[in-house]
């Protein structure tokens, strides 16, 4: 843990050498995500709700999903950009270190420019929670549970990111896969799952289980259905999915062939 913190602080210091670039990148990244939500707000301002979910209820889903994926992008930047290690042959250098390649990838770098998206997600969460006008008990339960659902979301996102990165052992390039395994599902998770056709719902509750991250618990927390199991499922599913992702990563490493001379 000490080593991890030292590596992280080193990465942070190097990034802060370019403060202006960091600020402008963070702001502009936050702006992109904010515009997305403003457009959704424009729709819901005119049409009130989407299949029974008002703006603040959707905002809760949107905020959780945004914070989860941006935290993944901040802390797991090297896993996300893993294809570079395959294309440029840098993965060999990770294999000869006395620390596991995954630990090295997780501590090597931070993408702080994505933090603007996290802040924007938190802002949407705050606005939505205020707008929901929950009673004290509901509010207490929601605030207590929020870190759990966000952490579960980060784990699901990391697992999806790691599975996609592992594919690079065979395909080298993974950017196009990421659109399929990360961007599209997390975009879908911004909205309630009940709006999607059956086949999409099956995908989002099985092979790409983003539905468990926010929809399942929020359904119960906002009294829209389900029971206390809805609160247990996100951490449970995320841990199982993480286990599968780690096994697949190890399988990938075992089958890795370097492009040596």
């Amino acid at each position, binding site marked *: 843990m000490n080593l991890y913190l030292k590596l992280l602080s080193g990465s942070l210091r190097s990034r802060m050498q370019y403060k202006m*670039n960091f600020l*402008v*990148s963070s*702001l*502009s*990244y936050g*702006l*992109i995500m904010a*515009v*997305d939500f*403003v*457009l*959704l707000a*424009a*729709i*819901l*301002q*005119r*049409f*009130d*709700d*989407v*299949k029974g979910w008002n703006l603040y209820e959707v905002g809760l889903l949107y905020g959780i999903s945004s914070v989860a994926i941006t935290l993944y992008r901040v802390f797991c930047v090297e896993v996300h950009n893993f294809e570079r290690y395959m294309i440029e042959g840098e993965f060999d250098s990770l294999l000869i270190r006395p620390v596991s390649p995954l630990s090295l990838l997780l501590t090597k770098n931070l993408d702080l*420019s994505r933090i603007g998206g996290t802040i924007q997600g938190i802002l949407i969460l705050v606005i939505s929670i205020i707008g929901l006008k929950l009673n004290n008990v509901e509010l207490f339960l929601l605030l207590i549970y929020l870190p759990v659902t966000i952490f579960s979301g980060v784990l699901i996102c990391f697992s999806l990111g790691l599975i996609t990165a592992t594919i690079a052992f065979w*395909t080298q*390039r993974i*950017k*196009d*896969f990421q*659109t*399929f395994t990360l*961007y*599209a*599902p997390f*975009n*879908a998770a911004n*909205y*309630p799952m*009940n*709006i*999607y*056709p059956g086949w*999409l719902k099956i995908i989002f509750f099985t092979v790409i289980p983003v539905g468990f991250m926010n929809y399942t618990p929020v359904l119960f927390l906002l009294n829209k259905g389900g029971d206390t199991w809805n609160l247990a499922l996100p951490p449970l599913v995320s841990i199982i999915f993480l286990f599968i992702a780690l096994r697949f990563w190890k399988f990938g490493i075992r089958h890795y062939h370097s492009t040596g001379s």
Partner: protein
Amino acid sequence: MVYWILLQKSFMRNMQYKVAHLINNAASAIFGFVFIAIWIGVLQGKENESPYSALDMTYYIAAVQCILWLSGFLTAGLNIQNGVRNGAISLELARPTNFFLYVTSQEAGRLLYNLFFRSLPIGLVFFFTVGFYIPQHIPTYFFLCISILFAMIISINLHYLVGVSACWTTEINWAHFVNFTLLVGLGGQLVPIDLLPAPLSSITPYLPFAGAIYYPVMIFLEKASSDVILIQLVWVMVLTSFNLWITEKARHKLEIQGG
């Protein structure tokens, strides 16, 4: 002609990544299904309050997902920033070709590739699943071709502008983010711009972003008169003239820096 050869080479280069692009097309279609689901959910029982029916919005989103590959998802800064960072731009500007056409013709080749291997397959996916509008009048096809061509030129120009700004700023990530956000946000990617709240709904029709996405889609759906092509034409001329001028300024700046 050298620019036509550059366009062809760029087309052929992209052909190397057909399989990866097909996977990406599936993701693009899923984005489309998500947006369509949002609109169907929003309009359920409220179609009389909207100028668009659920079917209209299905067609709209399906067409937008296809058009985006021609005028939305362009190379960030048309890669001009890389040349600025590694110094290669000095050589590129010294070539006996027009730098603006040299860069834009390569991107045009990529967009032509996108038409055949991105837009058409995505359109087919929508055609066989949720439905895809087929224009009913022959002149629509003629106006659609012009409108899409202008949309591509507008978008290439906007991306060129972002790229060439690297001659002054070096870093263009933020400019690309802002440009892309405005393009999809004010271009009508998720919300047709006439549904945006005032005053945005009255300003956006005259901005270049509408010319890049909204107008070609509305012409395709036969919901806009061909007059909107004039707005696109104005932006094509303004942006192209401005970029030719700014390229000369960039060349001048480079000479000073190098001297």
